[in-house]
């Protein structure tokens, strides 16, 4: 598959308040292209436990931002590293990064394929 897939889509689920840092750090590394959208997520911790009088209340879907960055294979590690560092607070809920293979990639404006 390595030979066939030369680009990767990095799907990073991050805390909304870390977006600015991720954007800036990617920019510094010359990585501008990205697509983001609002999501909600729960992780292995099953959300956040709120102390609530006698009992507790569980808020299980927490707002996050999904950042999708498509990069050539060679830039994968660097990009993942940058995002990880910029998005990390060290506390539960920092999120995940999933890397998906991209078979092909096109620029709509020109119709050309990007490699």
């Amino acid at each position: 598959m390595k030979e066939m897939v030369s680009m990767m889509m990095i799907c990073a689920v991050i805390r909304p308040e870390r977006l600015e840092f991720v954007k800036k750090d990617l920019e510094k590394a010359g990585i501008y292209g990205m697509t983001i959208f609002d999501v909600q997520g729960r992780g292995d911790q099953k959300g956040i436990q709120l102390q609530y009088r006698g009992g507790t209340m569980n808020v299980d879907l927490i707002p996050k931002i999904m950042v999708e960055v498509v990069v050539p294979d060679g830039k994968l590690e660097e990009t993942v590293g940058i995002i990880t560092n910029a998005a990390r607070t060290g506390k539960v809920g920092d999120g995940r990064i999933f890397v998906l293979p991209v078979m092909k990639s096109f620029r709509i404006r020109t119709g050309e394929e990007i490699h």
Partner: protein
Amino acid sequence: MSIDSGTTAWLLISTALVMLMTPAVGFFYGGLVRRKNFISMVALSFIVFALVSIQWVILGYSLAFGGDIGGLIGNLQHFGLEGLDPGQGDTAYPPLLFVAFQLVFATVTMAIVTSGFAERVRLSAFVLFVLLWTTLVYDPLAHWAWGGGWTMGLGSLDFAGGTVVHISSGFAALAVALVIGKRSGFGQYTMEPHNIPMTLLGAGLLWFGWFGFNAGSALAANGLAANAFLVTNTSAAAGALSWLFASWIRGKPSSLGMVSGAIAGLVAITPAAGFVTVPASIVIGVAAGLLCYACMLWRINRGLDESLDAWSIHGMGGLWGAIATGIFAAAAVNGFSGLIEGNLQQFVANVIGALAALAYAFVVTYILAFVIDRVIGLRVSEEEEYVGLDLSQHGERV
């Protein structure tokens, strides 16, 4: 004195207009916070309205307008509105209507203070704070300025509440913010207003309600009310424009800047509305916009998280207004002269009145917040704050 129906009609509707300002503050503030605290911010204003409404008819009115005790506070003669006849009195409007009119001033004042609590207050502590604050801070200040207290005796002029409402709430918000501490993440990442149109809606309703606030304070439907109405509008417009253009020089002219300037102008004209002319109101409004804008920039630079700028707009705008009243009061309007007409005494009285309200509100609020914080905790937990108050305090979500 027999009831005059025109006077009464104007006071009835003025009361309704001022009532609308409390939810309007909720929407104004609600648009400025993050999405996860929108409901909370509006809910706080409703809670304030409900709590203070009950406190006022039971206790507050009597503390503010009951028989004077040493210039400091009213007695309990009107506890539970005892001794107030709905129909008769020595005014051209029914006494109960004055109770209602003053009630809505007490509520909106309290609502302004929520600025200092934004996005981090525990609901139960807030309920307690409201009941104590309105009793210990608002009621005495209302007595001082309007109920026969010592600043009234001093001759300090406050037409519609520059000291009682704005200085007190603005500096109270500052004290609260100092005690409760910054929002987590403040200064580290931007906390953008999540719904600017709702803030604009709140601003529109505030501007609308303020006509009842200032022109209603004439307590009559006459030339004085008309003067108060027009200078109120003019000062608001002037404040909106001066903040707009000042911020335009530094960057983009934001709509939030414009409405903040309008509120600044409204605040500053509040104590002056029954004493100054239209040309003076332009000066007062322009200066208010510039001053409050500068105070806001200073606050942000200082890393102070008095989150929704009650201090810079109401506190400092109110201070300027109280001083400006001492400067610009024109005998032609209402028989009182200020510094410009050579009356230094008026100026001094107004400065004293303003500083006394400022000091009293700040100190007592600080102690109150501090004590509540130590005893039951003013602030939600870190998790609750992260999830947002809508969910953690109300179990609701936008």
